[in-house]
């Protein structure tokens, strides 16, 4: 009983970390890539320059650090919780990322796009309410 409760707390804390670290990581990568500029040439020379610009940008490395921390938490979570349980719950990030993009980066998000994001969250919620194991007899 107490061990199942501590597993529950451990799971909750890791889910919060997974959502925050992945969302912040994506926002940092976005800041970095906007500074690098749009990739519009595909020659070896141009790609080498983009590669160099990307991996000398501090925002990219902060983003990678955040995503690395996310990845470690995610692997730990997957070692005891099922993949089909973890993915729907961690998908709250689909709403957190646009919120951060709007609040921190000043991205304009249209009403149509917000409604799409709401649909995505509703769909994800529906998926997460479905029993994770679907291979057994019904």
């Amino acid at each position, binding site marked *: 009983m107490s061990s199942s409760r501590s597993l529950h707390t451990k799971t909750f804390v890791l889910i919060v970390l997974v959502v925050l670290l992945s969302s912040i990581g994506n926002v940092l990568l976005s800041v970095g890539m906007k500074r690098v500029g749009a*990739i519009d040439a595909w020659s070896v020379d141009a790609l080498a320059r983009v590669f160099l610009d990307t991996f000398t940008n501090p925002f990219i490395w902060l983003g990678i650090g955040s995503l690395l921390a996310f990845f470690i938490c995610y692997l730990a979570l997957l070692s005891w919780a099922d993949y089909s349980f973890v993915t729907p719950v961690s998908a709250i990030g689909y709403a957190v990322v646009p919120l*951060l993009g709007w609040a921190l980066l000043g991205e304009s998000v249209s009403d149509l796009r917000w409604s799409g994001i709401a649909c995505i969250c509703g769909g994800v919620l529906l998926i997460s309410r479905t029993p994770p194991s679907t291979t057994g007899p019904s």
Partner: protein
Amino acid sequence: MLQTVLGIAVIVLAGTGGEIAVSHAMKQVGEVTSFRPAALARTIVRAARIGWMWIGVALMALAFFALLAVLSWSPVSFAVPATALSYAVGAVGARFLLGEQVSGARWLGVTLVCLGVALVWMG
């Protein structure tokens, strides 16, 4: 436009494939019960011996480079919600590649996610 579609497709397909491979590998490694550095290091060494882990990491790296490319073209409030398409790919893959049963409620959820991505795309 076309390059954004291709970029999202690579993120979704390689990302989902990578996560399934990594999840498969971690189940062989066993539950992570200790977060002390020595125990974590042992877990990493054990994980690195599993082939599925390397396949998963390679696919996730590919998805990462595609994400960087898409982020150089589009705002993050578009790019990240668009990658929710991985739910549709996951359900279709589970049904037709793994032969799993996918319930009606789950298909409805997948439909909502697809509709949402379409709205995000138009918005």
